[in-house]
């Protein structure tokens, strides 16, 4: 089988970026949007074709085979080298499908959403750049290649968040996202270098081979009680946590909502933020086998805490995009914890499968939620829940699709989210009771805050709108309908047939007992939301008063931003940077300036020697010659 055509999948968006970027002034807005959409449509088709071909024929003796096309790019030593290439295996193909679907849908949607914007073509160029880097990330064959694309993704997300670059809040949000993820990526880079130094390879196939020297020799080196490889894996996970907005690197995600809403749907719901999950999944055998899965435990707990933490914050936020952002963080925490509780062989790999499954369904319904939220914002020009209410009459399609997505994320039976969430809960139940309980609780919270949004936007009292809200154009509703379809149908795919840690299909069945608990909790959440928010009443205020301090803490996102601000401003800037700046200014700079001043004043004194009279120059020359002659003869005599 030949998968070499998959190289086109990243290259088409790159070509689009170059064309749209270079000629952004020349290409009219009416063409550029369709150019972007057609280009990404081609990648969409190619990705689905690749998935079809791979899942149908990619098996050899019941095991999915990786297909690798690469060439040697940079050589460090005989063994250690950086390759550039394409790796086709079950999870990369699955990610191709996710990324291409969302990119294509968002591109279509943006044609309507961004209409009339000044930087229309520029926006599509950025989208293409982002898609290129994301495809490159997904298809990477080795750690260094993934790192390169990882940073490209970060850079293009910087461009997209800061798209409204005249808005100070957007600029600072872009900076914040970039700096926070960059800081986390520093850990990633150190991890990569450690891996390269101790194992001598960056190639995923060599690293992930359970019988290979890398995994079997993990105990050979140790540092502070842990294997060096474990440290490297934890550092790599730090990079993943940065991109995936896990605690404590989550602070950039809510602010990143300053970008245009399609960007939030593309980057902050479905693609970039799951890069961290993908990274852990990519190195899963290493995480699982090295030091008996110590690093994986870290992943599980970080995921579980983040999901709980984010779900609590999401309860109180009023900006609908921020609620969705925290919801995303919470759901990604789900995926992380599912990876963290997963085993490797056969049915033990349920968590891994569930994580990928949830990644897939989450991409669909969260992308849809963002697009629907964008449609709402497009209609009434506000992000805030208190400005909304009773919109179901004006925005029927948005209403229905939003409802489908909310039901799906809440885990109501027969929707996609139900199946994937159930697999996660089953995996957690089998491995870690504490995490299971917290996850079930989070499932209830999720249902509650999602329906808080739903009732707040589409039901309740109608607010006074500047002009009558109207349904979005076709180019926006069609992608939403497609994603709504996927949010239902996506759950009926038998992921366990396609994806497992050891690439061997296994049978996973719905655990009815656990499913019943989860969906009951979800329904309770929905009912509570119904009681609280269906009609205008003061129940919610009474509750928030009852919780008092706790409510305030939650509303302020547990003061995480303030803590960071304190650390950076007071400690780093105050105690380290200010003395350093003083030293720089008064010692380093001053000495340099002093040298400059002395030179200048001295030259001011002696510049009269440059009289312009050639006779003076000749005189200087001859007297110098005479002096040298005298000295030479004097020395010669003695």
């Amino acid at each position, binding site marked *: 089988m030949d998968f070499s055509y998959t190289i086109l999948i990243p290259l088409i968006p790159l070509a689009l970026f170059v064309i749209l970027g270079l000629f952004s002034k020349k290409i009219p807005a009416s063409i550029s949007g369709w150019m972007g959409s057609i280009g990404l449509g081609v990648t969409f088709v190619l990705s689905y074709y690749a998935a079809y071909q791979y899942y149908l024929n990619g098996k050899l003796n019941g095991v999915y085979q990786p297909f690798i096309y690469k060439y040697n790019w940079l050589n460090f030593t005989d063994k250690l080298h950086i390759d550039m290439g394409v790796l086709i295996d079950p999870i990369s193909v699955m990610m191709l499908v996710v990324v291409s679907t969302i990119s294509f849908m968002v591109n279509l949607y943006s044609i309507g959403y961004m209409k009339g914007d000044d930087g229309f073509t520029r926006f599509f160029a950025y989208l293409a750049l982002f898609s290129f880097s994301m495809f490159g990330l997904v298809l990477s064959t080795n750690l260094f290649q993934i790192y390169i694309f990882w940073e490209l993704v970060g850079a293009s997300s910087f461009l997209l968040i800061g798209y409204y670059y005249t808005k100070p809040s957007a600029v600072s949000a872009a900076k914040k996202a970039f700096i926070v993820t960059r800081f986390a990526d520093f850990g990633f880079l150190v991890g990569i270098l450690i891996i390269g130094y101790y194992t001598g390879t960056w190639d995923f196939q060599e690293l992930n081979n359970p019988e290979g020297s890398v995994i079997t020799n993990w105990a050979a080196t140790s540092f502070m009680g842990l294997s060096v490889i474990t440290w490297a894996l934890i550092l790599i996970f730090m990079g993943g946590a940065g991109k995936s907005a896990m605690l404590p690197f989550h602070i950039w995600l809510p602010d990143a909502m300053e970008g245009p809403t399609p960007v939030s749907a593309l980057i902050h719901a479905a693609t970039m933020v799951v890069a961290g999950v993908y990274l852990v999944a990519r190195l899963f055998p290493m995480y699982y086998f090295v030091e008996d899965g110590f690093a994986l435990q870290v992943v599980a707990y970080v995921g579980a805490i983040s999901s709980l933490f984010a779900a609590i914050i999401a309860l109180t936020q009023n900006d609908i995009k921020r609620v969705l952002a925290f919801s995303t963080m919470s759901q990604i925490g789900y995926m992380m914890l599912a990876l963290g509780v997963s085993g490797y062989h056969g049915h033990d790999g349920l968590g891994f499968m569930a994580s990928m499954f949830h990644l897939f369904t989450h991409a669909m319904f969260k992308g849809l939620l963002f697009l629907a939220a964008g449609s709402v914002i497009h209609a009434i020009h506000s992000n805030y829940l208190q400005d909304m209410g009773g919109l179901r009459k004006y925005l029927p399609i948005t209403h229905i699709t939003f409802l489908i997505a909310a039901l799906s994320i809440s885990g109501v039976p027969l929707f996609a989210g139900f199946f994937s969430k159930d697999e996660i809960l089953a995996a957690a139940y089998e491995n870690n009771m504490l995490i299971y309980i917290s996850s079930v609780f989070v499932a209830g919270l999720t249902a509650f805050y999602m329906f808080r949004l739903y009732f707040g936007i589409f039901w309740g009292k109608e607010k006074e709108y500047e002009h009558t809200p109207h349904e979005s154009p076709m180019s926006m509703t069609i992608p939403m309908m497609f994603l709504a379809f996927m949010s239902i149908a996506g759950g009926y795919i038998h992921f366990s047939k396609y994806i497992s840690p050891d690439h061997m299909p296994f049978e996973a069945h719905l655990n009815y007992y656990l499913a019943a608990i989860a969906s009951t909790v979800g329904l309770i959440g929905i009912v509570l939301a119904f009681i609280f928010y269906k009609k205008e009443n003061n129940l919610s205020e009474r509750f928030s008063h009852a919780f008092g301090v706790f409510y305030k803490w939650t509303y302020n996102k547990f003061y995480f931003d303030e803590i960071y601000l304190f650390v950076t401003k007071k400690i780093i800037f105050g105690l380290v940077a200010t003395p350093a700046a003083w030293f720089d200014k008064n010692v380093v700079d001053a000495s340099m300036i002093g040298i400059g001043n002395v030179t200048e004043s001295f030259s001011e004194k002696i510049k009269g020697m440059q009289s312009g009279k050639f006779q003076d120059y000749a*005189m200087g020359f*001859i*007297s110098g*010659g*005479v002096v040298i*002659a*005298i000295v030479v*003869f004097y020395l010669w005599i003695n």
Partner: protein
Amino acid sequence: METILFYILSALIVIFSIASVSSRKILRAVTYLLFVLIAISGIYFLVDYSFLGAVQLTVYGGGVIVLIIFSVLLVHHIELELEVTPLKKKIIAGLISATGLGITLWAIYTFPFTNATTYKSIEVADIGRKLLGYGDGGFILPFEVISVLLLAVIIGAIVIAKGKKLNE
């Protein structure tokens, strides 16, 4: 006889060169320079190097001096008196020159020259062979270079002296 002649010539050279660098009338200075050049050619004749003496007379006495006189006539009134050099400058220049002279003479007099015992007068034919010889010790290449240089100077001098018109 030759000794006396040499001393007379030396005295002429020194006196007229001093006169030449200190005279305030430019045409007189040129004339003194001419005397110096002629006296130097006399020295060449004394050492039996009559070819060089002839060249000195024709090129310098005939060519260079005439050129200088022409340029003087082009840019000066004949009666023009040159500006007086400031005394300070004269003293400094004199000091430097005197020191340089002293050190040169000291070097000359402390160096033991070993005079050749044989003596041969220089024939014009020898010089011609030397100049055009391309064998061992021949000067054909510098000779050609000098001829090219002279050509370049001819053209360059014309181009420079022609200059641009001021209104351009």
